[in-house]
């Protein structure tokens, strides 16, 4: 089992640790609901060092990224980030990822920990451009500092002002450590992700200084449990739940990152063009319910006792205090406002299709 550079810190804090993608990761420290609210109301810190960082280098770096991802990376300028996905030739999703343009000849691709080896192999198999593909995941620690007080917290440690737009990044020195500071996150809040190298000592120094800086905001450590409930309140897809190799980005509601008319060919382009022309058979939708029974991944979605879809993510929303879920339904039932049911332990529980995000910011 792998451990992140902050494993000992989590143990000292009494975190509940679980095996996630081969890493011992904190799922919660105190309570998922309390940690969730800390991020919504003040500031929280996640150790997400398990995420993968793969660097693409060379004169054809852009050509490679354009070919292997569905978004249009030619729109990026150095210092900008883009949400994207990689697809198999049949349109199924290999992974969703963040594309960082460092320079014309260097990109950093940040991928899911659970898919990292698969992604790396996929990239190597499709490297018809002769670029350098370097998996540097083990060298990087990654902390996500998220919440309305995140800027005031991180700025205290940083040698630069954090006046950057969403999905921008720069290199800076924070807590005496060189890092990539990125205005990104998986929570829907103002937030930053800090990528840096170094051993446990370095990581603990950054962690300690962050908690010192955030003390006045009652900064909290946040585990993967709240990371999941936070992303679901925003309707962000999670690989292995809402998207996987059997779903294509169009039905997953990721048409906005799938640039079918970009200026270069990419894997699955022809299939996705066909899918678009023929129309979608099913769509990923958002649902909420007023009942006290909670939909979970794998539960059926029914209309008039007939199965019309399946829940892919579901929980109680800590902010709304009611059940929220995402799932695929047949297109004819995918209209916002439609009534459906969650089939929960044999009972049909009424729910309604709603607009994302579940919580309005």
């Amino acid at each position, binding site marked *: 089992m792998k451990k992140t550079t902050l494993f000992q810190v989590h143990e000292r804090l009494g975190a509940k640790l679980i095996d996630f993608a081969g890493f011992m990761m904190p799922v919660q420290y105190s*309570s*998922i*609901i309390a940690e969730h609210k800390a991020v919504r109301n003040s500031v929280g810190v996640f150790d997400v060092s398990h995420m993968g960082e793969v660097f693409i280098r060379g004169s054809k770096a852009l050509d490679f990224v354009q070919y292997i991802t569905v978004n249009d990376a030619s729109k990026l300028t150095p210092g900008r980030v883009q949400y994207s996905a990689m697809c198999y030739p049949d349109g199924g999703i290999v992974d969703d990822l963040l594309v960082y343009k460092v320079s014309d000849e260097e990109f950093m691709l940040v991928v899911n920990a659970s898919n990292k080896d698969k992604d790396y192999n996929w990239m190597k198999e499709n490297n018809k451009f002769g670029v350098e593909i370097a998996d540097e995941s083990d060298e990087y620690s990654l902390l996500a500092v998220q919440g309305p007080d995140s800027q005031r917290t991180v700025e205290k440690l940083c040698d630069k002002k954090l006046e950057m737009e969403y999905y921008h990044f720069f290199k800076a020195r924070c807590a005496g450590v060189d890092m990539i500071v990125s205005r990104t996150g998986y929570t829907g809040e103002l937030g930053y992700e800090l990528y840096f190298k170094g051993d446990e000592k370095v990581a603990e120094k950054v962690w300690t200084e962050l908690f010192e800086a955030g003390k006045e905001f009652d900064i909290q450590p946040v585990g993967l*449990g709240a990371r999941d409930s936070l992303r679901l309140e925003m309707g962000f897809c999670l690989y292995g739940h809402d998207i996987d190799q059997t779903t294509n980005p169009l039905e997953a509601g990721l048409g906005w990152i799938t640039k079918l008319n970009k200026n270069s060919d990419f894997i699955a382009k022809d299939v996705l063009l066909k899918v678009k022309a023929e129309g979608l058979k099913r769509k990923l939708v958002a649902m909420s319910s007023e009942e*006290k*029974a909670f939909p979970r991944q794998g539960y059926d979605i029914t209309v008039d006792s007939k199965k019309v879809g399946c829940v892919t993510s579901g*929980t*109680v929303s*800590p902010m709304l205090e009611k059940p929220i879920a995402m799932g695929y339904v047949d297109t004819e039932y995918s209209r916002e406002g439609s009534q459906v049911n969650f089939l929960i332990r044999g009972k049909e529980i009424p729910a309604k299709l709603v607009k994302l995000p579940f919580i309005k910011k």
Partner: protein
Amino acid sequence: MNVPENLKYTKDHEWISVEGNVGTVGITDYAQGELGDVVFVDIDPGIAEVKSGESFGTIEAVKTVSDMYAPCSGKVIELNKKLADEPQVVNSDPYGEGWMVKIEVADPSELDGLLSSEDYKQLIGQAH
């Protein structure tokens, strides 16, 4: 981890305390810790009877849902109404305010098959 000595336990992490022929049932401190924040306790309000080893309801936590199994058979004489509005007491006071049901124990000999606090500690890896 709190495992009171005066209670009996199941392998499925329920406890029962018996006074006369009335057994009070709940889930253990270990179970509430594993579940995390309890958000809903779902026991059919019309439930009249439970059977030893059978599910009598479910507990919804943020991350997961779990069945609760009856430690013994018997007539249900009371449900903890407080849980409807304050399910979080299952986390804060699993052996007290967080109790689930009261049962009229049908066959006291069924209780002999349950775990002692020492056995239960062993089960959850907390034995000294």
